């Protein structure tokens, strides 16, 4: 089974995000009112081959914990989607699986 995986990684709430802060100020300068708490993170995609969804889930979680996310400063969330046989370009009929959210 092949799964399409989408991973988001962002700074923990307790960590100051100077990029988000700069963008927030820029938005205010442009006149957008009521916009706050801008946080900048990373978005990653990958394809995972596994014999079951549980196996894929375990592998992705380990990859996030070991490599993609540094838990000292970051947290993560990911979703798995069964890659359809003819699902070119995603958005297919695979089961949307909102999966694990990393430790906060």
């Amino acid at each position, binding site marked *: 089974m092949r799964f399409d995986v989408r991973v988001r990684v962002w700074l923990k709430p307790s*960590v100051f995000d*100077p990029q988000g802060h700069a963008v927030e100020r820029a938005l205010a300068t442009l006149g957008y009112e009521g916009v706050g708490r801008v946080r900048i993170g990373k978005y990653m995609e990958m394809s995972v081959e596994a014999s079951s969804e549980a196996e894929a889930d375990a592998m992705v979680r380990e990859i996030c914990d070991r*490599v993609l996310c540094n838990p000292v400063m970051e947290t993560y969330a990911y979703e798995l989607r069964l890659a359809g046989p003819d699902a070119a370009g995603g958005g297919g009929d695979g089961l949307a699986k909102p999966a694990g959210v990393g430790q906060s």
Partner: protein
Amino acid sequence: MFPGSNCDEDAVKGIRTATGDAADLIWHTADNLDAYDAVVLPGGFSYGDYLRCGAIARFSPVMAAVRRAAEAGKLVLGICNGFQILTESHLLPGALLRNEHLQFRCELVELVVEHARSPFTLAYQPGEVIRIPISHGEGRYHADEAVLDELERAGRVLFRYRQRVNGSLRDIAGILNERGNVLGLMPHPERAVAAWMGSEDGLRMFESMRRFVTDGGLLAAGAGHGAEGGVAHGG
């Protein structure tokens, strides 16, 4: 050195200038560092700083050897990107984040030498102010409060900025591991080894390391060496 290191030659020259000792450049594929008394991880942009600074270098074959060297009590010095690699490798706690002002800063800064009991500061005076250049965009030290308190309590904050240069928590510029034989710092001592560089204050860091090694290089034994015993005694 890793693909993307760019301060490796400077480190070699700094070590040779300060100590007169030989220093070899070791490629990241090496898996044995047994021949060496000390290991320096140079600055630069290993693996393009992809993902996070030091995140990919951490998995280089040589890092297993660096870990063994650290466990054997050898001196390991991580400068700038080398510091980032050591935190990503969990040889040092915490992490280094984007500077709070988002600028890459390359300038001579003042540091306070917190104490002279470490193998890296034997030749300095406790509390001495030294001038060493920084050159980084991601040097804001971060760790949770409990870790910061423990670092302070155990005398593991070795260098502190005198000014707020990047937003580092508690102005931390360099820290030791628990045993005291691994140091990571963002400033570049190898860029302060000659008068024409604007400072020679980096020389004594390498001299300290040399003195420590030639005096027997035993931290765990503590009382037997150095001015006031090993840093493991804390305080």
